[in-house]
């Protein structure tokens, strides 16, 4: 009962920012798709010939052709800007769930009322998941609707290095779902990290810094490992390793998509456990 009240209130307090995020991400997604007609048919070799570091930065693994509809969506959205946007939102929401309100004293006041810490933790994490899902769904739908507008649903034909013709299929709603879902997953994983740090420390700055460092550090680690090769054993901690390597927007979902969900659940459970056992910070 009170969990539903806390959940709805938390969403309502973020209704305006959710709208702004949704509109912003939708605009960026549609604007990125709009560039396709001017770039379609561009040589994949040019974009992909910058060595392993450049390929890693662009997410051009496994011979993805950036001139194809799916390859274009991958390098212009799903390998870079789209998951970054969702991850930024996920971190902000994960931090806000506990630590954000705790620093202002609003959480303490809420906990003076007939509601438990468990209820607050579950309701707010559910709220974070909901907002992340709303932004993902609307931006994914916007991209699906944009496909025919910018010929992204049309198959393309290109010439390979050996002179043979290569036909690349057009992007479909399922491809968009795969890309959006895997981005949502990685963002949720990072939201779990932000929630975990915030719930353990009650400090907004620490949670924001820690979760951001985890996301950015994972990206840097993955990119450096592709350049040097020596850091490869450490990249298991980076969400980018499976995200970029698997390129689910292009090749379809793999079981690796479960990893960030599992990470989010573990982060939430440990954070909840710690939150129950510690003192609230003095506002």
């Amino acid at each position: 009962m009170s969990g539903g009240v806390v959940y709805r209130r938390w969403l309502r307090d973020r209704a305006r920012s959710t709208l702004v995020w949704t509109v912003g991400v939708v605009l960026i997604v549609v604007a990125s798709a709009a560039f396709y007609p001017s770039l379609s048919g561009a040589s994949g070799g040019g974009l992909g010939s910058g060595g392993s570091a450049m390929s890693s930065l662009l997410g051009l693994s496994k011979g993805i052709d950036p001139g194809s509809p799916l390859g274009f969506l991958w390098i212009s959205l799903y390998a870079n800007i789209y998951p970054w946007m969702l991850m930024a939102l996920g971190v902000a929401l994960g931090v806000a769930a506990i630590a954000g309100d705790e620093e202002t004293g609003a959480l303490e006041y809420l906990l003076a009322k007939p509601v438990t810490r468990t209820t607050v933790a579950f309701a707010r994490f559910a709220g974070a998941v909901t907002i992340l899902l709303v932004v993902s769904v609307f931006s994914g739908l916007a991209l699906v609707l944009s496909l025919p507008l910018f010929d992204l649903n049309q198959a393309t034909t290109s010439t390979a290095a050996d002179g043979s013709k290569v036909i690349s299929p057009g992007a479909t709603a399922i491809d968009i779902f795969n890309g959006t879902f895997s981005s949502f997953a990685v963002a949720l994983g990072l939201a779990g990290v932000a929630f975990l740090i915030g719930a353990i420390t009650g400090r907004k700055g620490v949670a924001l810094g820690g979760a951001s460092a985890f996301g950015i550090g994972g990206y840097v680690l993955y990119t450096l490992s592709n350049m040097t090769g020596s850091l490869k054993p450490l990249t298991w901690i980076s969400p980018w390793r499976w995200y970029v390597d698997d390129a689910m927007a292009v090749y379809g979902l793999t079981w690796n998509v479960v990893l960030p969900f599992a990470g989010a659940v573990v982060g939430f459970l440990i954070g909840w456990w710690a939150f129950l056992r510690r003192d609230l910070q003095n506002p």
Partner: protein
Amino acid sequence: MDSVIETEGLTKRWGTLTAVDDINLRIPAGECYAFLGLNGAGKSTTARMLLDFIRPTRGTIRVLGGQGSDPSVRARVGYLPGDLNLPRSMTGKDAIAFFGGLGGDRLHVDSAGLIERFGLDPSRPFRELSTGNRRKVGLVLAFMTNPDLLILDEPTSGLDPLLQEEFRDLLAERKAAGATIWLTSHVMAEVERVADRVGLVRDGKLARELTMAELRHQAIGQIRLTFPAHVDAGQFQRVPHVTGAQGTNGEVLVSVDGPVTDVLARGAELGATGIETEKRDLDDIFLEMYQSSGDAK
């Protein structure tokens, strides 16, 4: 009588800092207990432990027969923090609906009368409210469910004198209706009006507890007598009800605990040409007691 608040050896330490040190409290139902002390004495830390925001390093707490973490206990508590903070976009109306809704059917929310009484505009978001108006929101939220226990941290801080008076009236009404009140304050006028008992906390320790009758007894009068020439203050030492006398340059300051008739008669005998009376206010007494409790350590 059952205790509404009961603490046993309550202690809170952060590293080497002892914020609350071995406090034992028994506050019976219907009592208004004022927890007095300077900034940093441990008042708010104690309040925060009562509601389970922070956990004691040692000792036990019982609130309304249960734990402060229990929602059924919290449903019977009205809390006003020293500095209320709500989500910035939340209006007073939203806050009443939200916090009132958390108790489900257990809570009967009665806010309209309080809104009118405090002159609160419930349509304005929290970010637009002045300190005083934020305080009004806090008071409405604390009182709107007619709680059995009110925990009020510096309740009149930021309120203008008229609203302070309104608040004291409200507190007296709720006390008359049987509510138990635990408040922290620096304002002795507030304490004098509503409290039954005070606890003086210093450096985290409960230095002294006394009833308001005992506190008022401390507010004994003083009489300043003027003479045309020097008079030895010792002339007043044996006069009934005199607790002390000091004299300088034709003036004698006599402290009296009880009727002043004998002092006036003695003054007249000695040829007093002027008389002034003064009564120490509770602020002076508080500071004196605070000082003496520190010296006694």
